[in-house]
């Protein structure tokens, strides 16, 4: 509970960013994000775009798993559907990029509705297996509908084009991915303050009680799947525009596990968790690589220590799960609380 934030109107009580300090820091962040491309190298811009795509997809998964409590391992498949939708619409009909991204989201949404159907009957691990099956079916479709998907060789994608500008490098692509990710985050933060979001949380906490309270389970579970897969579809579309080449192997099961790990490490059921989790999972391996680069090692030592990076990364994830099960978002909240309450202890 924070002190010194007495609210005197309903509007203030319902505000998403409720203190001047918070709004000021948010403005600083916005300025930093807008200035970042002009200062950063191509490498960091590339990573920023990749992180943004991962944040968008992780946010979608967090709506489904973190807020609604439906474990899904089909996120990669939904992203794949989005990516292939973008590629096919671009190649066959020359659909404008932004429209094809919307279509990617809708195509994934439809698949999400289909995959979500078993969620009324099964939960937990059983549902996870059902979503894996969706991934397998999607992979089969990508591989075998050769005339549409290019089969195992996949499809190549031209760069996204907005207002006649081809977004062919990370600098330009950043200006597409940043607003879309920001809109996705804002949308998810607001969604969870609505009746729908509260229904999701009720279902997560106790679905039978939620139904007793008048929440139609099927409708809301399907809605969670639909929204989550829409996010994944748009993220997949962005992925296709970013990497410019997609094959059935671009979206393996391990990518779904990556996103699940991201939201667990970041913090289930928080918008911030999706951001921090995606940041952690994407950037920590790169940072570890840089750290290895700074160490005064000879060539062979580097060779033998390369696997250590993977071990350290895995260990970090395990340590988080053991010592901070609420994820990085909780660490962040604790840090904030420390500053808010200083000189008093939390």
């Amino acid at each position, binding site marked *: 509970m924070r002190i010194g934030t007495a609210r005197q109107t309903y509007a203030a009580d319902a505000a998403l960013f409720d203190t001047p300090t918070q709004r000021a820091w948010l403005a600083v962040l916005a300025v930093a994000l807008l200035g970042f491309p002009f200062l950063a*190298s191509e490498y960091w811009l590339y990573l920023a775009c990749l992180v943004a795509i991962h944040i968008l997809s992780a946010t979608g998964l967090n709506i489904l798993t973190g807020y609604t409590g439906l474990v899904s391992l089909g996120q990669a498949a939904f992203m794949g559907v989005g990516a292939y939708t973008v590629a096919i619409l671009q190649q066959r009909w020359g659909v404008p990029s932004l429209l094809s991204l919307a279509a990617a989201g809708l195509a994934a949404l439809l698949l999400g509705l289909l995959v979500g159907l078993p969620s009324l009957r099964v939960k937990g691990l059983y549902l996870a297996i059902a979503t894996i099956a969706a991934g397998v079916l999607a992979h089969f479709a990508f591989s075998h509908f050769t005339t549409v998907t290019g089969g195992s060789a996949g499809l190549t994608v031209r760069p996204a084009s907005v207002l006649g500008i081809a977004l062919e490098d990370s600098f330009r692509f950043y200006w597409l991915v940043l607003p879309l990710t920001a809109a996705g985050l804002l949308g998810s933060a607001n969604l969870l303050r609505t009746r729908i979001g509260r229904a999701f949380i009720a279902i997560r906490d106790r679905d039978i009680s939620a139904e007793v309270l008048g929440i139609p389970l099927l409708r809301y579970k399907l809605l969670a799947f639909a929204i989550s897969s829409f996010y994944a579809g748009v993220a997949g579309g962005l992925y296709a525009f970013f990497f410019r080449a997609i094959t059935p192997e671009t979206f393996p099961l391990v990518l779904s596990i990556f996103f699940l790990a991201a939201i667990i490490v970041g913090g289930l059921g928080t918008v911030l968790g999706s951001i921090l989790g995606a940041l952690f999972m994407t950037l920590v391996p790169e940072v570890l690589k840089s750290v290895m680069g700074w160490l005064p090692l000879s060539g062979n030592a580097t060779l033998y220590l390369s696997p250590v990076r993977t071990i350290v990364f895995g260990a970090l994830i395990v340590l988080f799960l053991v010592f901070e099960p609420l994820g990085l978002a909780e660490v962040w909240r604790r840090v904030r609380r420390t500053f808010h309450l200083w000189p008093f202890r939390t």
Partner: protein
Amino acid sequence: MKTKRQFLATTAAAAAAAAAATLPGRVLAQARPAAQEDIVLGASVPMTGVFAFAGIGIDAGIKDYLEILNGQGGIKGRKVRYVPEDTGYKVDQSLAAFKKITGGNKVNLYYADSTGFVKAVNPEVDRMGSILMTGASFAREISNAQKYPMQFMVGPDYSEMVGILLQYIAKAKPGAKVAMVYSDTEFGKDPVDAYRADSKKLGLNPVLEIVTPPGSVDVSTEVIKLRRADPDYTIFHGYVSAPIPEFINQARAQGLKTSFMGTFWTMDNSTVMKMGPNADGFMGVMPYRYYYDTEGKAPMLERIRKMRPEYQSTAYMQGFLATMLLTEAARRCIEAGNELNGKNLKTALSSIRNFDTGGIIGVPLSIKGNSIPIGRIYKADFKQQKMLPVSDWISLQ
């Protein structure tokens, strides 16, 4: 730390310092010009992950050739500097490595680690126009010089590998029955169309195709299919090892006499020898000579054996030869007085005729397209624990 606040302040300061150190801005990068003297060879190498067995060899091969080259004064007095990054054999990490290396260095030569990465980075390579690229991929698509104008591969593409195997079969046993077992992956399916077309063209009888998931799988039903078809030769493609040993063991247990064959990534000596005694006689195509090959004049192989007394893998040879060809292109480009850029480097590479690789490839080398369709059939001899040649060098050029 005395207080949590001090701890947080220290952590924040350390994070800021780390960020400053690892975030070289555009302005900073521009203010630090790349060394004019060095020619930079960047590399996305899988030192970890599923392809690390090859990445480690490739890395060693690149380093050794550059040690030899730089020891002789480099290229026209210019040293070649190797800047590798580990990728874990993941496309996004390979691309990150590419951006990092090209962002911090003036790169003209690059080694790529996978087909996926080559496809993803190709538009960037074309746009930059400063890099000649080769790598670990032998995908058919990359041998299309129009689509991949700044790339080449260090050997035959997968379709050409299968073509070389089929040529050998047609000569050894005209009209032979052949089967192909491949993985349900882009890698596995790559030469399937060529297998169908070439086997017909060479008068062979393609009796069976089997598709399996990659890796260890139950193959008992597939072996029954194989027994029914009873091919004279069975070609595996799209695997490194598993499920090949399982196939061979079950096939031998059922009395199949078929000769098993593989393509490049299956053909390392240690990979085949680990398949077990049933794999005695396993054949396959290899574009390079093996480390222990003492046949004929091979000064470069002798040099390698001096540098590294222990066996070096075929991936090592691939990295070594890739570096030899990349730097040869750079040498010809500089000698012609041309600027080092992708187009000039590719033109220089394409001018290579009857090039002596010092015995890495057993015949003089001429480069005409994006691939080098030369190979030789080797056969496993478990008594000697070696792959031994059973054919002359076969060229599809």
